[in-house]
């Protein structure tokens, strides 16, 4: 396939880059409104308690306080999934985690609002709380939600093929427990929402609600606001300003978004709520701590015969995306390799901790860590190169996997080949000095879910386009640019298709009043789905321009090329001097509803006629001709995934299917300090099959960013809990890697040109993350011979594994430290909120029992 594009495939600056580098771009917290109040939220100090009484009278009386809202002000439940409407904007009867939302004060300034929070009297009845998912699953009483027995949000049990037969055929079987600890998005922009009501001129009363919010899903926000505030969706406008990163943390309705609206309603004034960094950690919705009991069988020739996984996810206090997360964990065991037999048992469990949700690589990352680590172990057992083992188990697309996933474009073979080649794998693996090693792993991800959260026949994306006499192209898209560059993607597709310059294209995005529905920026769906909708809308309008231009140029529309702002007759077809058929000329006036030249002055019209048909028209001329001919120039396009890509029929089959999958292979080079257990990643070679790189600089940025975030989860990032309280709710303590801790990442783009993607493009923002963690784990094994089963691979865990291998006594790192400190983690100064003091505990609280030993990193 030729790559004869003028804008697609070229590295270009994002269309909103200047606003970002000059500081002129506006994020939600940069906005204000006349008479705007500041909202502050009162959070629960208890992990699990019944609210017996809330008294807000003292707070309301404080000078400067305009309104105080509590749960009864908006008692309708909501949740991102139709099956998970279990959240309230503010707690009604119970709080379920430390940080749960209890009340909100709207006041003239932040200091007043904070003072008022201290004047709200809440009487709690403390209940036993559950912090460990395996403990929580045994609960009979004091359930977190009354309708969820054993605190199990949802469990799924899938069998594909014949796993027992598969294991019987295996020559080697590995079985182990892997634990991936909890991580969070920590996007640089704390969540913020500004809500205001407009006064209806007919009734003179507050009417439409306008919400400007840091969201990845404006349409879902509009929908949930409608549910909770009991307002029709048509009376709610959601606008997404610039968003400072999401990674999934803004991909559902976050409590403050609804709280700001109900506070604005009661205060009768605009209210802005901005989370502190600590509140962002409580709002969370990150990747759950996941326990994976994994068993894999393999033949001597390297063929995988069966996989059995039991996955328990510590989901936190509400459903959120939980049902989807636990399904992804199982479904995406398929579609990477050819695995004939799969058994999956997944449990999404409720605990009294902040809510987990969707995070980059949703559902796949922790299971992929376990699987790729175990595959490495099995490769060693059968004496094969782990890169070869991966190549032996490749799928043969086009195909449908044993669990119903349709795979078409499949760049994994080339991905593996590229990283093996670039990293010098064959020459260097196993030959590096002691303490230094190489590891390989692969991963994949969906290019958007083939089934939307709210099941309907609605298109997943719709895009409108308008071109006016000025020759300006305006694209109206619901796609939510959260920094990944979707506005740029839309502009590129429009400009390339119309053959016009990028500066002509203006993208109006993510405003529910102006832009048609797009279901949001999550599951890496935007380039594929919104890109396809954009392409259709642009082709629609291009067809109109072409028909009018062809008339002007006395040729057929298909003879025209659009490029560099000029519409030209293709050479070699009908020449410029070809006779003009009379029938065609006469039809111009009759087909068009308007008489040509109605707007142009008569003399100009005459001049044009004298000139006769032209060989080319400028883009403006073509547009004017089209408007004169058609009356107006607008187009629309929408996208819905094809039926055959929507998956199988089993329970839970809706999650996992995608119109296309991205693929990634990675090699990591690490060194391990055997004295301290410290792991240093020197370099990661990461190849990613993105179908086609529409903007290579953005694609590389997404690959590097994914690898980097995966490295954070592999080495340092971890949410540390003590009695349901987060011990490290700050960016330093959470240990997001800085530039000195970040390795060189060599991003290698692989283009498999997907048959259904826009210009062949697929996902590029999430699929690379999952491979990084096992690649680093496998490199550690290569370096020092220990297999780590728990992430992150902190010096403590690496050292423990090294000592266990030597049968040496473990070092008690917490010796002499506060005896109530968690045994396995570094201690932190404590939450700012509690100034180091832990909350009161119920006597029957399971957390008061002695904690069982942590999962070992031994092998």
């Amino acid at each position, binding site marked *: 396939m030729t790559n004869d594009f003028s804008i697609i495939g070229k590295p270009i600056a*994002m269309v909103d880059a200047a606003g970002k580098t000059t500081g002129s771009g506006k994020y939600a917290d940069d906005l204000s409104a006349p008479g705007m109040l500041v909202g502050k939220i009162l959070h629960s100090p208890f992990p699990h308690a019944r609210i017996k009484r809330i008294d807000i009278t003292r707070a309301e009386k404080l000078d400067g306080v305009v309104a105080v809202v509590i749960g009864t002000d908006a008692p309708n439940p909501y949740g991102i999934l139709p099956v998970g409407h279990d959240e309230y904007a503010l707690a009604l009867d119970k709080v379920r985690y430390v940080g749960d939302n209890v009340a909100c004060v709207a006041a003239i300034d932040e200091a007043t609002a904070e003072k008022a929070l201290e004047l709200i009297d809440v009487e709690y009845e403390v209940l036993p709380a559950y912090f460990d998912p395996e403990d929580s699953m045994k609960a009979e009483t004091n359930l977190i939600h009354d309708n969820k027995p054993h605190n199990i949000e949802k469990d799924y049990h899938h069998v594909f093929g014949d796993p027992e037969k598969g294991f019987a055929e295996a020559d080697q079987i590995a079985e182990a427990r892997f634990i991936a600890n909890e991580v969070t998005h920590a996007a*640089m922009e704390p969540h913020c929402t500004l809500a205001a009501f407009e006064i209806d001129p007919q009734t003179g009363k507050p009417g439409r609600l306008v919400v400007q919010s840091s969201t990845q899903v404006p349409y879902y926000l509009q929908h949930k606001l409608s549910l909770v505030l009991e307002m029709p969706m048509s009376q709610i406008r959601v606008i997404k300003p610039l*968003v*400072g990163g999401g990674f999934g943390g803004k991909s559902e309705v976050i409590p403050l978004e609804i709280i700001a609206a109900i506070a604005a309603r009661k205060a009768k004034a605009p209210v802005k709520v901005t989370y502190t960094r600590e509140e962002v950690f409580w709002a969370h919705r990150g990747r759950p701590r996941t326990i994976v009991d994994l068993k894999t069988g393999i033949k001597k020739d390297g063929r995988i015969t069966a996989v059995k996984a039991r996955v328990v996810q510590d989901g936190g206090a509400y459903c959120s995306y939980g049902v989807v997360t636990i399904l992804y964990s199982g479904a995406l065991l398929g579609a990477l390799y050819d695995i004939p037999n799969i058994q999956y048992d997944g449990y999404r469990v409720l605990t009294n901790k902040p809510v987990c949700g969707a995070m980059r690589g949703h559902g796949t990352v922790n299971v992929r860590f376990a699987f790729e680590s175990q595959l490495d172990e099995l490769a060693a057992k059968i004496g094969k190169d782990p890169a070869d083992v991966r190549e032996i188990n490749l799928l043969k697309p086009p195909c449908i996997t044993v669990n119903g996933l349709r795979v078409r474009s499949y760049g994994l073979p080339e991905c593996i080949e590229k990283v093996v080649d670039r990293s010098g794998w064959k020459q260097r693996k196993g030959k590096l000095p002691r303490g230094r090693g190489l590891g390989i792993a692969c991963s994949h991800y969906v290019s958007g879910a083939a089934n939307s959260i709210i099941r309907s026949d609605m298109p997943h994306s719709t895009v409108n386009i308008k071109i006016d006499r000025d020759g300006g192209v305006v694209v109206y898209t619901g796609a939510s640019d959260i920094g990944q560059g979707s506005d740029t993607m839309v502009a590129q597709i429009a400009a390339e298709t119309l053959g016009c310059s990028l500066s002509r294209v203006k993208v109006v995005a993510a405003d529910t009043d102006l832009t048609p529905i797009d279901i949001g920026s999550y599951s890496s769906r935007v380039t594929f789905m919104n890109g396809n909708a954009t392409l259709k809308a642009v082709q629609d309008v291009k067809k109109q321009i072409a028909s009018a231009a062809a008339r002007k140029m006395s040729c057929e529309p298909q003879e025209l090329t659009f490029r560099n702002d000029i519409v030209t007759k293709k050479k070699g077809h009908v020449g410029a001097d070809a006779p003009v058929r009379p029938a065609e000329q006469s039809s111009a006036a009759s087909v068009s509803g308007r008489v040509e030249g109605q707007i142009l002055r008569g003399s100009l019209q005459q001049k044009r006629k004298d000139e006769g048909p032209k060989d080319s028209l400028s883009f403006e001329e073509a547009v004017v001709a089209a408007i004169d001919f058609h009356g107006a120039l607008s187009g629309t396009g929408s996208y819905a995934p094809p039926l055959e890509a929507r998956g199988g029929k089993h329970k839970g089959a809706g999650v996992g299917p995608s119109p296309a999958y991205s693929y990634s292979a990675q090699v990591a080079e690490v060194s391990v300090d055997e004295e301290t257990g410290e792991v240093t990643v020197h370099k990661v070679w990461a190849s990613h099959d993105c179908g086609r790189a529409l903007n290579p600089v953005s694609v590389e940025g997404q690959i590097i*960013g994914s690898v980097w975030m995966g490295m954070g989860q592999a080495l340092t990032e971890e949410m540390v809990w003590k009695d349901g309280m987060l011990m490290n709710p700050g960016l*330093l303590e959470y240990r997001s890697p*800085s*530039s000195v801790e*970040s390795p060189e990442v060599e991003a290698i783009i692989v283009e498999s040109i997907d048959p259904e993607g826009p210009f062949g493009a697929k996902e590029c923002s999430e699929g690379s993350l999952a491979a990084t963690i096992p690649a680093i784990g496998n490199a550690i094994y290569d370096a020092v011979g220990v297999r780590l089963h728990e992430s992150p691979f902190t010096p403590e865990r690496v050292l423990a594994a090294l000592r266990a291998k030597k049968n040496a006594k473990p070092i008690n790192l917490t010796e002499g430290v506060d005896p109530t400190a968690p045994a396995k983690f570094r201690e932190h100064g404590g939450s700012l909120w509690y100034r180091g003091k832990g909350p009161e505990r119920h006597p029957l609280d399971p957390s008061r029992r002695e904690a069982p030993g942590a999962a070992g990193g031994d092998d």
Partner: protein
Amino acid sequence: MKKELIGLTVNGRSHELAIEPSKLLLDALRENLGLTGSKRGCDDSSCGACTVQIDGVPMLSCTMLAASCEGQEITTVEGVSEHGSLAAIQKAYGDWGGSQCGYCMPGFMMTVKHLLAQNPNPTEEEIRQGLSSNLCRCTGYSQMYQAIRAAIEAEQKGMAAAK
């Protein structure tokens, strides 16, 4: 708290504002002067998104009192562009993908400007060290190094052309 009148010089312009003595520089810039370029990303001086230059030195405006900056030259991200156009470093960050969501950008701009003022031709190691005061969650920093390298080249070409 009673407000006091102070004078601040920001991006070469003098302003007089009435603020509480407890007002943080970041809030004074954002709320009183409408300079919303500088961002708040954390509450404990760990992220660097609020970085401004005080007399040419990068400082965290989220943990500085506005009143303590009287008589000093404050430069924010709004003061980086030149003659209404992007400065070389801003252009390069756009071209090389140094900025994705952009929320950390105002802080990085101030840090990088300082780095290059101190050391016009830093090694990659020196760049890594120089940027370590600021966090970014999108880029993994790699494309920033390319951007900085490109900006240095552009500046050098510009200077050569001027000679």
